[in-house]
């Protein structure tokens, strides 16, 4: 199979799947499931084939004419694969979870249709080979996630959707302005290791600083960097699989990935450092990390607490980019994956609590460990990972970030990491305490799924968090194994810092 076909199939199989799902009648549950899983498996298979090629040192790419001086380019390099594989795998898991979660709910055709389109957009972002292609899929992601955010159709969901679009559309316009400007200076801006803007004369440096601000400002909205984070906690009204998708697979991750791409493959990290733009970025990330954690402390709703935790954790990735140096880069890139699997575990568990027992508030968690032990084990692993306990994925990320901070001679970052870990502990450990060590004081708010011997909730809801929790532990314990996220992040870093 040719490179072009492989890349196009990788991006479009979920698009075709989504369209077919829209055309199927609402009642065709079996076919819909088959198409969903089939498309996800095809996507993973294609990505594996691409991985094989990339490991042989190839860079696959396909170029389609689109606009004058701006082609559509899909390109698979090590960095795009990191994100692509993450989202493809998590999509599969989330789809399985969503099938269980939405059992019997209305409008499932619409939900799964847009779910597939959303993954198409994410895959496009991952495999985009230049800025205009990135922008195209980035906007597509905004549009395809909107129907998911407002899926419940309540006035509250609509308000959240309006807020979401207000933030992301303005972000899109800012990003577009940056893309347009850079396009005028450089012509087509293809991503490449080590950046492309260094060919410009020194007189363009002030313009480049402004462009950097526009581009990063555009993607920072989706990455929920403070003060552009307002949409994320509101969007929690969406069903749990959507939250999982927004936080771990697609939207926030797309924003963070955008920061990574722009810093490394447009500006080049060394050039960016010489422009002096990384320092402000690091401060922005630091503020976000602390602010998110502080806000998480005071939330009484479980999903809102998780949302603020995401705001905080996503900025670890940005921090890793902004701390100039290979170790920090490894930390940031690996956290892109680790934050994804940890946060998706937490959201799956929160969804299980809500769907099985009707638990939404934190003080309703008392004694839930007795009632739903397996879910709570998964939740515990995710939470410990977020805190950065050794033997979990979170520890690996924080270790490299800390090392990076030392190497970059930025001691304050070390304090920041420490403070943030303490805050993480402060808002996660009480949850674990309630779940495991307190006894149930009141009846469960709404018990949707009755207890059966040996099974605490439906199987489709239980398996996904267990699988992702297991991967959190594996990524922590076998961080040095071949094909682990860490090894992959090291490979990318070696490419970016190559002299």
């Amino acid at each position, binding site marked *: 199979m040719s490179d072009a076909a492989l890349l196009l199939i990788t991006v479009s199989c979920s698009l075709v799947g989504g369209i077919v799902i829209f055309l199927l009648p609402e009642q065709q549950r079996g076919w819909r499931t088959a198409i969903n899983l089939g498309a996800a498996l095809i996507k993973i298979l294609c990505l594996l084939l691409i991985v094989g090629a990339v490991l042989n040192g190839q860079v696959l790419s396909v170029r389609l004419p*689109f606009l004058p001086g*701006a082609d559509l380019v899909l390109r698979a390099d090590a960095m795009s694969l990191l994100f692509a594989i993450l989202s493809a795998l998590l999509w599969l898991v989330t789809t399985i979870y969503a099938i269980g979660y939405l059992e019997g709910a209305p409008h499932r055709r619409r939900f799964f249709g847009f779910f597939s389109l959303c993954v198409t957009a994410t895959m496009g972002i991952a495999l985009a080979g230049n800025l205009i292609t990135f922008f195209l899929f980035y906007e597509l992601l905004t*549009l395809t996630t909107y129907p998911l955010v407002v899926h419940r159709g309540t006035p509250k*969901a609509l308000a959240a*959707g309006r807020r979401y679009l207000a933030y992301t559309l303005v972000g899109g316009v800012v990003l577009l302005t940056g893309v*347009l*400007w850079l396009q005028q200076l450089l012509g087509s801006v293809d991503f490449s290791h080590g950046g492309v803007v260094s060919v410009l004369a020194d007189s363009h440096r002030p313009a480049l600083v402004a462009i950097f601000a526009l581009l990063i400002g555009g993607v920072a909205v989706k990455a929920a960097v403070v003060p552009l984070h307002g949409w994320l906690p509101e969007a929690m009204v969406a069903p749990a699989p959507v939250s999982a998708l927004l936080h771990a697979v697609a939207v926030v991750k797309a924003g963070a990935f955008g920061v990574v791409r722009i810093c490394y493959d447009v500006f080049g990290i060394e050039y960016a450092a010489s422009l002096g733009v990384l320092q402000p970025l690091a401060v922005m990330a630091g503020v976000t990390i602390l602010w998110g954690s502080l806000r998480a402390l005071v939330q009484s709703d479980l999903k809102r607490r998780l949302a603020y935790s995401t705001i905080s954790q996503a900025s670890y990735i940005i921090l890793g980019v902004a701390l100039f140096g290979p170790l920090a880069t490894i930390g940031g890139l690996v956290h892109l994956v680790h934050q994804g699997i940890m946060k998706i575990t937490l959201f799956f568990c929160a969804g299980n609590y809500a769907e099985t027992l009707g638990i939404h508030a934190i003080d309703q968690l008392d004694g839930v460990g007795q009632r739903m032990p397996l879910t709570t084990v998964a939740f515990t692993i995710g939470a410990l990972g977020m805190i950065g306990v050794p033997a979990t994925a979170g520890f690996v990320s924080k270790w490299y970030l800390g090392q990076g901070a030392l190497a970059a001679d930025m001691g304050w970052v070390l304090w920041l990491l420490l403070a943030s870990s303490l805050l993480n502990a402060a808002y996660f450990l009480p949850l674990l305490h309630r779940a495991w060590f307190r006894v149930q004081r009141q009846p469960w708010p709404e018990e949707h799924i009755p207890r059966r011997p040996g099974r605490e909730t439906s199987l489709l809801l239980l398996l996904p968090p267990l699988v992702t929790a297991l991967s959190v532990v594996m990524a922590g314990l076998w961080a040095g194994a071949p094909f682990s996220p860490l090894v992959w992040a090291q490979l990318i870093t070696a490419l970016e810092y190559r002299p």
Partner: protein
Amino acid sequence: MIRSDALLPILVMLPLSLALLLLLSGRWGRFLSLAGMVLTTALAALLLSHGGQPLHHAMGGWPAPLGIGLRADGLATLMVMMTALVCSAALIYGEYWFDGAKAEQGRQFRPLAWLLWAGVNALLLADDLFNLYVTLELLTLLAAGLAALMATQAALTAALRYLMVALIASTAFLLGVALLYGATGTLALELISIRVAANPQPVLVVAMALMVGGLALKAALFPLHGWLPPAHGGAAPPVSALLSALVVKASFYVVLRLWMGPLAPLTGGVGPVLGVLGGMAIVWGGWQALRQHNLKMVVAYSTVAQMGYLFLAFDLLQGAGYASALNGMVLQAVAHGLAKGAMFLAAGALVVAAGGYRVDQLQGMASRQPLAVTALAVAGISLAGMPPTAGFAGKWLLLQAAWLNGQWLWLAVMLAGSLLTASYLLKVVAVTFLPAPVAASVGCGQRLGGVALMLALLALLAGFAVMPMLQLLAPVATTGGWL
């Protein structure tokens, strides 16, 4: 094998003769109309396959000045194709919409729509100033007739008000033609171009002001837009689609033709005026659309705003950004035609299903009328200039032109306009996700929404055919039309 320039008269005569046949035929009208649609669209595609090389045809072998000349270049070809798509969609939609109690109006709609198709094609292919006048006038009369089709008091009033305004505009245009003819002694656009360039007299500026002013009035350029929302918002949906997508676009097309050709040496001072008015139209039209509670008025005010983009672009049509601006304008015109047509058709389907015009009656439509809501959303994405639609390509090129010329204000206005567009469309689309009220359940199929969606998807797909379209335009962009 017929000569390829014979296509041009056929593209005018075929719709014209069909319109006349449809006046007579009763039961077979539907099939005749369908066959004609396929044939005319195929012919438009055939013209497209000529790759934008200019074709000339002298009707009946009579050369200018007495004969009627037809001419097609890449610009005209693209617009002919867009016209064919919009007209086909509106005609098919009309077959479904005018049923039952409205069958009588349906029988009148068919020939009128076909006459409109013939008129638009004739205007797009016209090669001299006087044909432009006659076809413009023809479109005005047809538009007034179509707007009055439902024969309600409101529709008749809106149609008459439109007609009065349009007649003043036509007279101004004709006066401009008279002055131009007096000064240059010819009506052939190509010859006028040469003579104006050789001898730009002051009287020509007056002629230009009269012509552009008249056309701007017909194209509903701010602040001359007051007639448009009631006329377009109050008509039957397939009629609104035709009026908004094609009739106002025709006036814009004539301005563009004159701007690039005969009037090119005189445009210096007028560009900024059109730019300012266009910019104000973008803001004012968008703001008004945001404030409307009637779905069709939202869409109608959106036309005012979108026409603003097309007129603002005249000020971008200069200097380093010339080619980008021209390409962007044409793409914007094509994209707006497809998207706005789709939007009016979708709005019509939603109004039927909801049993009312108000936006807040659209609750639950996302599940009851998914095709219409999707059409509305996709068309809206194109209008707001978001990728990967034709609307995005158009706006990207216009932004690029503004950048190349350093016209930062226009850049900001256009970007703000996109957000405004997204806001008023979001307001409408969001309501459809609310749960449906229990009482409301007007039986209505998906066919109307389906037709609208087809047209909306064309606006989406056109976003992937930008390069071939620009290839067609390349000769026009480099030579500025005639010279």
